[in-house]
C-alpha cells in the first residue's frame, strides 16, 4: 500500500532528508530526522502520525521553509521552500497547533493577514476575509478581538486565515489538539470538506490514529528519529473492516 510518485509529479518531495540539532558529530547533537524519503502527490491529504518527539514538527517546519535540513533535499512544487522562501508567498498556508492570532487585530484583520502580504486591495481582502469567516460560522464576530472569542472560534479564525490566501498547499500542525473532542470533531469535518472542495494538497500532523483515519487519504507513521515505519493509502471506498485493519496495524507499529 506504499504510495509511489516521482519527484517531478510530487507537490511535496523529501529526498534523503536528515535534520540534526546541535553540532553534527558532537555529543549534544540530536538527530530529529534520519534519511527520510517522502513524496506527496498533488491533491493528496497526508496524515503524518507519530508519538510526541518523533520529529513530526521538524518535518513540518522543513516543508514550511522555517527550518533548513542538515542534508538531503526538500522541494515543494519543485522549489526549495527554505532557499526560495519568498517565492512561496501565497502558495503555502499553515494552520498551527495553537491559533496564533495577532492579539492586536480583530478576527477580520487576522484573516486578512495573508492577503495583505499579497498586496490584495483593502476592499477585496475584506470581502474575502468576511466570506471565509462566514463559511466557518463566525459571521457577526468579524470585529471581535481574539480575547473575546472562545478557543474553538479562535481556531476557526486561524483556519479561515489559512484558506483565505487560496494557497495550493496546506500544512496543519495538530490544529485541533487543544480543543474538546466535540468541537474538534466538528472542525475536522469542516476542514476535510473545505480541503476537498478547494482541491488542496494538505499535510496534517497528528498523534491521534482516529484523527489520521478521519482526515487523511494517506497515513504515514513515523518512528523516532523521524523514519517511515508504515505508509498506507486509502480512499472513500475503503471498507470499515479494512480501516479497522489499518487502525490495528498502526497501533502495532506505534507500540513496537
Amino acid at each position, binding site marked *: 500500500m506504499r504510495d509511489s510518485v516521482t519527484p517531478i509529479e510530487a507537490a511535496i518531495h523529501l529526498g534523503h532528508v536528515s535534520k540534526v540539532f546541535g553540532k553534527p558529530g558532537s555529543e549534544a547533537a540530536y538527530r530529529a530526522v534520519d534519511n527520510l524519503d517522502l513524496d506527496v502527490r498533488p491533491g493528496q491529504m497526508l496524515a503524518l502520525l507519530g508519538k510526541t518527539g518523533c520529529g513530526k514538527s521538524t518535518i513540518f517546519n522543513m516543508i*514550511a521553509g522555517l527550518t533548513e535540513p542538515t542534508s538531503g533535499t526538500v522541494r515543494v512544487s519543485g522549489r526549495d521552500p527554505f532557499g526560495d*522562501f519568498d517565492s512561496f508567498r501565497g502558495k*503555502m498556508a*499553515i494552520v498551527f497547533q495553537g491559533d496564533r492570532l*495577532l492579539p*492586536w487585530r*480583530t478576527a477580520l484583520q487576522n484573516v486578512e493577514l495573508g492577503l*495583505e502580504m499579497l498586496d490584495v486591495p483593502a476592499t477585496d481582502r475584506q470581502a474575502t476575509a468576511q466570506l471565509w469567516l462566514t463559511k466557518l460560522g463566525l459571521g457577526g464576530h468579524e470585529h471581535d*478581538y481574539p480575547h*473575546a472569542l472562545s478557543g474553538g472560534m479562535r481556531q476557526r479564525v486561524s483556519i479561515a486565515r489559512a484558506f483565505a490566501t487560496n494557497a495550493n498547499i496546506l500544512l496543519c500542525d495538530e490544529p485541533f489538539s487543544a480543543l474538546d473532542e466535540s468541537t474538534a470533531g466538528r472542525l475536522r469535518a469542516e476542514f476535510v470538506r473545505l480541503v476537498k472542495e478547494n482541491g488542496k494538497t494538505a499535510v496534517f500532523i497528528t498523534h491521534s490514529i482516529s484523527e489520521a483515519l478521519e482526515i487523511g487519504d494517506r497515513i504515514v507513521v513515523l518512528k523516532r528519529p523521524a523514519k517511515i515505519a508504515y505508509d498506507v493509502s486509502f480512499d472513500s471506498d475503503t471498507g470499515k473492516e479494512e480501516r479497522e485493519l489499518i487502525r490495528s496495524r498502526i497501533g502495532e507499529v506505534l507500540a513496537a
Partner: protein
Amino acid sequence: MSEAVPHAEPPQATNRLLAAIKRAGTSVLPFVVVILLWQFASLFFPRFLFPSLIDVFWRCIEIFSSGAMFADVLATVLRILAGLAGAFIVGGLLALAMVRSRAVDNFLSPILSLFQGIPALSWVVFAIIWFHGVEFRIFFIMVMTTLPSFTFQVLGALRAMSKDLMEMVFSFRPTRMKLFRVMIAPAILPDILTAWKVNLGNASRVVVVAELVGATGGVGYQLLQQQQLFDMAGALAWTLQLVFFVLIVQGVLTLIENTAFRYRAVSERAI
C-alpha cells in the same frame, strides 16, 4: 400605622457620578494637603523661603502671558523632545542591530552599561569641553543620558516578542517592511510607550542641568536667574512649567495607550 417603603436603588448614572467624584477626590487629595501645608508655612516664614502660592500662581500666569518668557518654556520643551527623539531613533537602531547580531550585542552592551553609570553632570562637563554650540551641547547631553535606557528597553521588547507569532507571520513570507508593520511595531509599542514615559521624567530633570551651563534661555537658565535673585516664587513658577509639560505629555501617551491597546483583555480581578 406607617407602611414600609422599599429602599429605592439610586440610579446608575448617580452611582457612576459618585464613583467618579470619589476617584477624582482620592487623586487630588494629596496635592490639596501639600498646597495647604505650604500655604500655612508661608504665613510664618519669610517670602524667600515659603512664598504664598497665590504669588506663585500669578508668576505662572505671567510666564504664560509673556511671549519672551513662554518662548523659554518652549525652548526647553523642544530640547527635551529633540533629545528624546534622537535617543529613541539611535537607541532603536542599536537595539535592532543588537537583536540581529550576537557580536554587535556583545560589543555594545558593555559600552551602554558603562554609559548608564556616567552621571548627567559628567556629560554636561564633557559636552562643554568637546563642543562649542549650546544647542548641540544640550542635544548631546540629552541623547547620551537617555540612550542606554531607550536601547535596553527596545532590545528587551524585541527579544520578548512571541516566537510563535513571529513564525506564523513568517509563514506568509512578509517583506521586511510588512513584517515590521504587522508584527514588530504593534508587539513592541507597549514597551516603547513605557520607555518614553520613563525617559520623559529623566529628560525633564537632565535638561535643567544642561541649561544651567551655557544656555542663554530656557527653564534651566531662568531657574539660575531666580537663584541669583533669591526668588523662590519665581523658582517654583518655572519648575511648575516643566511639571505641567511632563503631565501633558504623560496624558498624551496615556491617551495613545488607551486607544492603541483597546484589544487587551481586562480582568475583573485586579492584581
